[in-house]
């Protein structure tokens, strides 16, 4: 019993210690952002590896999810003779939830894990230490550009996901199943609100991007600098990001759409 309590206490302490380090780290990273803006070249390179390289998986997933949604929703909606509602149903699902959440999960799998592994290996091979000894702050030089790139990429990726998903459902619904094209768009425009849905969806993706990138770079920077440590950190990035995104999604949804 006492052992159990001690374990609990130790677990709690190390959790808060990590949380504290994470926040301190976040603070330093944010302090490093102005330096990045002076040398935007660093961030462009990161936008490429974080953003551009994630487009493929985001686009493929987006179109697949859109097509499947279109097919499934069509089957259900036909029972009520409400096929015309396909547009708004799919658009709302994508813009409000699936776009931000799924692209954040894919982002952490594609870009977040790569960020963790890259920073972790730089640490393991003493590149970060070397940089420090060359009087170059690795948080400013390595972490901040990656952080900013993740922050900027995420909303764009979520928008691409949603837009391509809607096109995918248009292809299935209108192209294959014969929903009226005009009704598809007009119903969508009537139901989807710029502020309520699209703006809030974008806020979600900004929050998710922030959290996903923070977790990824922190796990890398805080990893045990061994082969095993880096591989553990990479796994933790994906798992923790998934928890954080899904949990935050619930909170944000309740805040944004709860009083409706």
């Amino acid at each position, binding site marked *: 019993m006492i052992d159990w309590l001690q374990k609990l206490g130790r677990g709690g302490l190390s959790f808060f210690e990590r949380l504290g380090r994470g926040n301190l780290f976040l603070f330093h990273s944010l302090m490093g952002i102005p330096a990045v803006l002076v040398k935007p070249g660093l961030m462009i390179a990161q936008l490429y590896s974080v953003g551009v390289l994630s487009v493929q998986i985001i686009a493929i997933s987006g179109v697949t999810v859109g097509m499947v949604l279109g097919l499934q929703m069509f089957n259900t909606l036909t029972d009520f003779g409400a096929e015309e509602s396909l547009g708004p149903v799919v658009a709302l699902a994508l813009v409000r939830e699936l776009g931000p959440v799924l692209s954040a999960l894919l982002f952490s799998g594609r870009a977040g894990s790569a960020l963790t592994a890259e920073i972790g290996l*730089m640490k393991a*091979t*003493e*590149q970060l*230490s*070397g940089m*420090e*000894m*060359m*009087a*170059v*702050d690795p948080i400013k*030089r390595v972490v901040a550009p990656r952080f900013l790139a993740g922050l900027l990429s995420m909303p764009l990726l979520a928008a691409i996901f949603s837009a391509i998903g809607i096109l995918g459902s248009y292809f299935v619904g209108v192209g294959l199943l014969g929903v009226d094209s005009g009704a598809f768009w007009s119903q969508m425009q009537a139901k989807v609100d710029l502020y309520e849905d699209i703006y809030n969806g974008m806020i979600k993706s900004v929050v998710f991007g922030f959290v996903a990138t923070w977790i990824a770079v922190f796990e890398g920077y805080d990893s045990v600098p061994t082969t095993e440590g880096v591989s553990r950190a990479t796994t933790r990035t994906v798992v923790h990001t998934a928890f954080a995104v899904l949990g935050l999604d619930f909170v944000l949804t309740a805040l944004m759409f709860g009083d409706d």
Partner: protein
Amino acid sequence: MNKPDDAEVLVKIRGLSFSHGSRVILDNVDMDMQRGHVTTIMGPSGTGKTTLLRLIGGQLRPKAGRVEVDGKNVPDLNHDELYELRKRMGMMFQTGALFTDLSVFENVAFPLREHTRLPEALIRDLVLIKLEAVGLRGARTLMPAELSGGMARRVALARAVALDPMMIMYDEPFTGQDPITVGVIMQLIRRLNDLLGLSSIIVSHDVAEVSAISDRLYMISNGQVVAKGAPNELRESSSEWAQQFLNGRPDGPVRFHYPAEPFEKDLMSAA
């Protein structure tokens, strides 16, 4: 050896202690490293030699004691002062620590690009001079993955001297290298030290190589300085530590056996 004059001492360590959790790594260490000298810190693996370098570089904070570099106590410096001091220190890591995503040229150019606003042509000249000094001017377009271990260390050395520092620290520069490479690196360390007017601190356990190029040796074991002096002084000293280490005897003050209860007792307890 007579006490060196204060002005000639570049790194002055007094009463330095450091511990990792409850494990004491350095315990009340005093050292003097003179300007223009190659000072070597020797000792068995795991005795805090690398830790010592990190303490001098300000990457770790000591539990107690002073680490004065060029008259400034490193643990007292704030972030900016520390970074300012580090621009005048070079460090060569065990593995080289080259940036794997940059070419050899860009690796050597890195500190110049970060800390100076020199025109590109001048950076190119400086980088080529440094690469020439380590004999790798021809390898400037290679990526670190294409280099052998010895070449990677030479590139790292070129990078460490890119900003013309006042001192360089070498962390195990010879470990795991073939005899030719060891010879090359030894020559480089000594030559750069004398040509560029540097001061060098080497951490190593390669006795023969290091004593050939060092002006002064410190031997540490269990976190304490157990012997010090010029290489020939040490070889003739009566210190058991020095004798064991310099002659590579398996047993001596440094035990062959990891501490354990008596063997008989251990065998009996299983029955």
